[in-house]
């Protein structure tokens, strides 16, 4: 065993190399990298922790039961409140009212869905605006559509 110390030295060098590698890797690799693939797993949790801006369909009905009931009865039942108004978080945060909800009565808002366009599906209710309003003898003002139609239930 006269050469034993050569072997011991070689092993020591190897161990040192491994330790150096592990340390360097530790400082260069971010936490949670490689846990589920070639990416930082913490990033998934970061995405998941973002606060939703829109509520869900039931959020508005919690306070506005009447409007919600009117909405579900009519043809606008499939339209989420936030489409015509604004995202829930602009109005309510942590169950407290922070600002009044946006109410847009403009013809432009109605036109985004109901302006007559060739590309729209045939069965979808569409009118040529503002001609439709003029035909019915209405003045083109803010809220002209609401003079005849209830936005929450257009057939009422």
């Amino acid at each position, binding site marked *: 065993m006269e050469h034993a110390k050569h072997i011991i030295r070689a092993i*020591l060098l190897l161990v*040192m190399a491994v*330790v*150096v590698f*592990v*340390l360097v*890797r*530790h400082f260069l*690799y*971010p*936490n*949670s*990298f*490689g*846990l*589920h*693939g*070639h*990416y*930082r*797993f913490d*990033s*998934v*949790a*970061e*995405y*998941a*922790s*973002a*606060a*939703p*801006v*829109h509520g*869900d*369909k039931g959020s508005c009905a919690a306070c506005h039961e009447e409007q919600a009931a009117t909405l579900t009865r009519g043809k*606008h039942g*499939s*339209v*989420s409140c*936030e*489409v015509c108004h*604004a*995202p829930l978080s602009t109005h309510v945060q942590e169950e407290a009212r922070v600002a009044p909800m946006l109410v847009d009565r403009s013809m432009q808002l109605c*036109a*985004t*869905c109901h*302006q*007559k*366009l*060739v*590309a*729209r*599906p045939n069965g*979808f209710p569409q009118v*040529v605006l503002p001609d439709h309003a003029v035909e019915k003898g209405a003045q083109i003002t803010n809220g002209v559509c609401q003079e005849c139609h209830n936005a929450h239930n257009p057939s009422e």
Partner: protein
Amino acid sequence: MPTIQANNLPPHGDRETALPVLDRRGFLKHGTRALGASLATLVLCDLAELMEMAEATGLTPEPAASVLAGYDWTKHRYVYLVDVRKCIGCGACVRACAQENNVPRDYFRTWVERYEVSRTGEVSVDSPNGGRDGFAPHVRGHDVTKAFFFPKLCCHCTYTPCVQLCPVGASYRTLDGVVLVDEKRCIGCGYCVQACPYGSRFIHPVTHTASKCTLCYHRLTRGLLPACVQACPVKARMLGDTKKVGDEVAEIIATQTVRILQPELLTEPNCYYIGLSAEAR
């Protein structure tokens, strides 16, 4: 000034006795000890962190697969379905997406295109402001025999060109099938933006990192629908979960005629289209 010439230098033996220089053997011996001791100190100080890292690198058995509180990502696999025949081009999805994800103005994580096709096969496509403000009626230079709206978003491909070429491991696909970008890792090289065949990525003008549709991951993990799906007034956009028993959307994809975009690229998109005409690109 005296000049030093090679033959004026003291002889080798004299120099060695004059300076307390270590010989090679001594240098290696003491050096090794010193290095070993400092490394050992580092290792001991860092043991707890090292254990964590060992876990992270898979050297020790993984903890439970679900690390997101109250949400098990092994129990979901999302698919997206767009019924082109229903889309009215109102742009509610584009607005909802921008508000939900704070998408900078004039950049789009989802957008709507309008296709107008003539009898002779001329195709006109427009998407003013990504369809955000809806579409206005207009007159084409050609007759229009067929027209439709074509909503687009990230296809959340199974074989993602964007993830494959990311040089820093910033782009990835989650276990529940959502392609995301780690904004802290992304160096903004833009390779993924060019690699995406569906044009669904962009470089964020403020953070200068790649940005894209996340399928509203923060909503999915809370059991909510993506903002675009919830905003769609005609249910042209639908989200499905193939791991959920009796899922309506998964059932449609399994039983009806659906189309994916650019199937020849073998990216296996998880965004399906119903009623999409051949002109759509």
